[in-house]
């Protein structure tokens, strides 16, 4: 009779026997089991802790590398900005201050002329009244026969005539002086304008020098590897990443519209029934045109030295660079023209399809359709403008690529840190789980342990006092 059959026939006897046997076996294997659980959990826990430590080390190295890259990139950017500012200052100095000696001479001439004119226009006071003393002397002569009055009358007449003459010459002199002052006006204005111009130049230079000073401070901080500089650069990179990402999304939207504008008419050129892989050839062709436009836009921006994605283009000599500008612009212009034509064709095909659908649906031919050229022209203009608009994608693309290095580095460092934490957590959990398993094991065999404890606690039977086995003498 087999064991299952025995169990089935005598469950009341068989199960307790099995349980007791199991209990005994588990109790006997207790020490080994404890050692095994402890060893297993210790190994696992230590391996996980080691892995966690490795990840933390890798994170630290990555962080250090990120910091170096960020600071180097930031230093390069500031160097470029400083270089540009110095170029601007140089241009201002060459343009405005190079002619400063001429300005100075012109101003000196003007001042001399104004000074001369001013001297000439000095107010000449009228001659002092010398007649008063004569009148006083005559007035003291006793007027006996009325001669004094006559003399005084004569003096009065002479005085009036003299006064009139003096006033006339004074008025004439004043008129001349006013004339001179009037002539000074343009010189004053010119002097004022010259001074304003010099003032503006000096103010501009002052502002630029302040900017340069700030940039130099920033540069020094970066060179010194200060945390503040790192934080600022990191924050700036993140901002750049999100802003350029947003602009890229907008550009992708533009590219999708562009694609829809030319995909249908492309089927008229390459056929609507052919496929490349799982994609319609016309769609692939439209996509290729858009990608070529974007590439040309990139080359154009690169040749114009607006972006710096391809060092090879940036290092070309000016003559070759100008050639490249023209070539990429002509290709872009041609493609824009092609797109415009395709947009026109799209409008015609869409109208034809609409008419077909109406006739298939059984509707009467619509004769009173509003034939407006505005949608057609709108599509053509869009088809022409969008390639040029896509050209400017190069700028956010460059920012995106540059900032993504920092963002990617920060993200990977964060992931490493999180992974290290999780591994450490799992290691600790494993270690404690081992203790829990040992406790659970003991719980399962508690009757045996209880019995063992009971037996240990039982007072030992009093042993007979040990009598020294002395030799008994007969």
């Amino acid at each position, binding site marked *: 009779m087999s064991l299952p059959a025995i169990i089935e026939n005598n469950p009341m006897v068989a199960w307790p026997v099995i349980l007791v046997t199991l209990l005994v076996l588990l109790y006997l294997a207790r020490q080994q089991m404890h050692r095994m659980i402890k060893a297993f959990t210790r190994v696992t826990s230590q391996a996980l802790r080691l892995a966690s430590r490795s990840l933390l080390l890798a994170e630290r190295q990555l962080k250090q590398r990120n910091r170096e890259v960020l600071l180097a990139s930031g230093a390069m950017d500031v160097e470029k900005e400083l270089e540009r500012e110095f170029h601007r200052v140089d241009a201002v100095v060459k343009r405005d201050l190079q002619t400063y000696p001429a300005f100075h001479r012109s101003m000196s001439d003007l001042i001399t002329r104004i000074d001369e004119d001013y001297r000439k226009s000095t107010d000449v006071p009228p001659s002092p009244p010398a007649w008063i003393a004569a009148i006083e002397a005559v007035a003291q002569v006793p007027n006996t026969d009325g001669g004094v009055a006559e003399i005084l009358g004569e003096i009065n007449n002479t005085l009036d005539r003299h006064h009139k003459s003096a006033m006339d010459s004074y008025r004439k002199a004043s008129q001349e002086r006013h004339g001179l002052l009037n002539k000074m006006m343009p010189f004053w204005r010119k002097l004022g304008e010259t001074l304003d111009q010099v003032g503006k130049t000096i103010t501009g230079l002052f502002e630029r020098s302040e900017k340069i000073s700030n940039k130099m401070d920033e540069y020094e901080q970066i060179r010194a590897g200060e945390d503040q500089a790192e934080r600022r650069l990191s924050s700036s990179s993140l901002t750049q990443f999100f802003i350029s990402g947003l602009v890229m999304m907008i550009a992708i939207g533009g590219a999708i519209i562009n694609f829809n504008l030319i995909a249908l008419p492309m*089927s*008229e050129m390459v056929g*609507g*029934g052919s496929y490349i892989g*799982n994609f319609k050839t016309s769609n692939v062709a439209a996509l290729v045109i858009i990608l070529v436009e974007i590439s040309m836009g990139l080359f154009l921006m690169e040749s114009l030295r607006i972006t710096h994605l391809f060092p090879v283009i940036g290092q070309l000599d000016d003559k070759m660079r100008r050639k490249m500008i023209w070539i990429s612009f002509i290709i872009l212009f041609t493609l824009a023209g092609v797109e415009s034509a395709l947009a026109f064709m799209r409008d015609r095909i869409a109208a034809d*399809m609409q008419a077909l659908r109406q006739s*298939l649906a059984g509707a009467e031919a619509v004769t009173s359709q509003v034939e407006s050229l505005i949608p057609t022209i709108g599509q053509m203009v869009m088809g022409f403008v969008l390639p040029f608009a896509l050209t400017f994608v190069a700028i956010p693309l460059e920012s995106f690529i540059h900032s993504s290095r920092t963002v990617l580095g920060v993200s990977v460092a964060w992931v490493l840190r999180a992974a290290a934490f999780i591994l450490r957590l799992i290691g600790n959990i494993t270690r404690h789980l081992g203790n829990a398993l040992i406790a659970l094991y003991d719980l399962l065999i508690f009757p045996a342990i209880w019995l063992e404890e009971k037996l240990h606690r039982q007072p030992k039977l009093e042993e007979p006092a040990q009598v020294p086995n002395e030799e008994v003498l007969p």
Partner: protein
Amino acid sequence: MTRLTLLLAGLLLLASGCSDTTSHSKAVYMLLDTSGTYTRELDKAASIINYLLGTLQPGDSLAVARIDTGSFSEKDIVQKITFDGRPSVSNQQKRDFKENIDKFVKTVKGAAYTDITGGILQAAEYLYETGSGRKVILVFSDMEEELAKGYVRDIPLQLQGVEVVALNVTKLRGDIIDPRKYMSRLEDWKKKVESGQGKWRVINDLERLERILE
């Protein structure tokens, strides 16, 4: 020189690897039952054909054939066409197709017998010849086959990769009395099509034509 040759050979291989080996075009063969009173239903068939013309793309194929006494014949094909790749040309082809079908629907005369099996055999032959990726046979009929004396149609169908869609399967007088006849008729056709490794569907609601080519 050797390097250039190798490079060109590599590019050629790459280009050939990129070319598509599976066809993405569709081919639809529509069988119109012209027997007895079913000719009155042909206006509905015309609207289905119009729907197909509006749905099929450049490069797809469409054929319309009648079911009569002996349908296993090219003579029963009313109109067949593979649309041009250029949308402007294919639109004109669709207009011409519609015009011809409208003429056919107006002038069609009822046939004495209904050889559906022959029509399906002819349809399968045409569809395989098109080499299209998706092959659909639309059977616009009550699916009641009536063969003239001497016609042998007890042959297995070869419909691997072909979908057979029965459209507007009307109930006959006998079906109304005993619906089991209708059900067993459809079940027989299903077995026949599926034994030929084809797919079988029935669409009676012509308000949902988009289900035909779903």
